[in-house]
């Protein structure tokens, strides 16, 4: 450790701000307090008739609706249908997107062919192609999966392509200098170097998958969280609507936490 203390050693001093408020998560406490305050005001307001329970049922009603939906198994079944569409659609779209992205990031010729297609197809809002896809695939499950897959395909493709193109040339020179063959260049340089951006692609694709699944379920499904919300709207059960919305929010947060954990595990060299 003789070299730690000299001029090249890294400073371990914390920023001044952190030393002034050591260990006290004041900001978190304020946030939590504000959240509780809003919920309490909401509860009080809707119970005393100051705000409309049709639009804003009290949070306790939402919790009751959530319990009921859970115990009757309605939530579980619909959640399962949504998760199935999100993950199968993601797999069907992101895996080909990743492969094509890596290849076209590598090959200038392939990129020249693929780029115009991306430029033409990527800006189309993917919900808009649902009617067309339903004509082609019918009104069953496959059309929903197809739309989700198509929506996941592009962010993954674009990120994977950028990831390969942005590998600094010096890494290839080092690899070549030490005699790396093509297989090793891929496994030891290209794969790890592209991981950070590829994981951004995964994050984007997964979020897109959730958005598209919900959208598709709102317009054309019997099951799924989206279908549940639509039914709650049709029957004016606002508490059910809030309950389903809460589950959807938790789902979105959960996905991000999973991707974050995956990133920490797969990319330990990335300082955060």
């Amino acid at each position: 450790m003789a070299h730690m203390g000299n001029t090249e050693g890294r400073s371990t001093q914390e920023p001044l701000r952190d030393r002034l408020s050591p260990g006290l998560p004041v900001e978190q406490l304020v946030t939590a307090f504000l959240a509780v305050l809003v919920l309490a005001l909401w509860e009080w307001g809707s119970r005393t008739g100051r705000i409309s329970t049709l639009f804003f049922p009290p949070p306790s009603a939402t919790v009751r609706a959530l319990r009921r939906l859970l115990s009757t198994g309605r939530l579980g079944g619909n959640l399962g249908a949504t998760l199935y569409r999100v993950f199968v659609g993601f797999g069907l779209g992101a895996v080909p997107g990743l492969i094509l992205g890596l290849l076209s990031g590598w090959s200038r010729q392939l990129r020249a062919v693929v780029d115009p297609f991306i430029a033409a197809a990527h800006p189309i809002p993917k919900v808009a192609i649902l009617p067309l896809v339903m004509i082609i695939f019918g009104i069953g499950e496959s059309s929903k999966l197809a739309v989700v897959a198509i929506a996941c395909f592009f962010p993954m493709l674009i990120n994977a392509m950028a990831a390969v193109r942005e590998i600094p040339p010096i890494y290839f020179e080092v690899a070549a200098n030490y005699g790396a063959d093509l297989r090793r260049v891929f496994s030891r340089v290209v794969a790890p170097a592209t991981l950070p951006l590829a994981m951004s692609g995964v994050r984007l694709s997964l979020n897109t998958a959730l958005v598209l699944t919900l959208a598709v379920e709102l317009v054309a499904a019997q099951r799924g969280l989206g279908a549940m919300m639509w039914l709650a709207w049709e029957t004016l059960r606002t508490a059910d609507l809030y309950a389903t919305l809460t589950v959807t929010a938790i789902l979105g947060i959960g996905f991000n936490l999973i991707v974050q954990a995956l990133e920490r595990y797969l990319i330990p060299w990335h300082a955060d």
Partner: protein
Amino acid sequence: MAFECQHLSKTYRTRNGPIPALEDVSFRVEDQEFLCIVGPSGCGKTTLLKLIAGLLEPTSGQITFDGQPADGRPRCALVFQEHGLFPWMTVLDNAAFGLEMRGVDRQERHNRAQAFIGRVGLGPFANCYPHELSVGMRQRVAIARAFVCDPHMLLMDEPFGSLDAQTRLVLQEELLRIWKQYRKQVVYVTHDIEEAILLGDRVLVMTGRPGGIREDITIPLARPRDLRAGEQHDVAEIKWHIWEILKDEVRKSLYVTA
């Protein structure tokens, strides 16, 4: 194994037309010799190293090793200015990379790399990632990586160029110490005249773009050398002489771009 550059020229083809980087460069490096190359920035020093390493093909001319054409190129290890370490590998895996590419098994290459990491004073940092180290420590890892795979020749491209002055002095002495032990043939590119004189048996002074050899100077300093070597009278003369040439070349390249 001595190697020789014969009338090397390199012209880059760019969208704006051909750019000559090197023109008619010829020199010879003996076995175990430490050759330094100084020149104004943009004079093609890095291009020259990449040609020797075989990462680039010359537009004309050739490189021979003991009179044989470059196909029989002996193993050489290139040390880059910075960013040459793989951020996704630990210090240990980075240092062992050359061995890994040669198919040395994991245990063996880790043992050898660990020994060398210790030799550059980074033993306790073997499992750190490069971003956890200072720039000076990273360059030590890069030097360890080059030495570990026991190359015949070391090619160094301003390896200490981005370090602060004091760290650079420490690493220069460290490099001399390791070099003395292993006696590799070294081609060392720098823009630092004092560094070139301290390290090199010979110093090649290059002209501005397109780069050529302006002068070939033998450094009459005994080894082992340390930082005090720079204070000797004849060294001061040489330093001044090189600076006179370089000043001229730097000026020319400034007027070209202005």
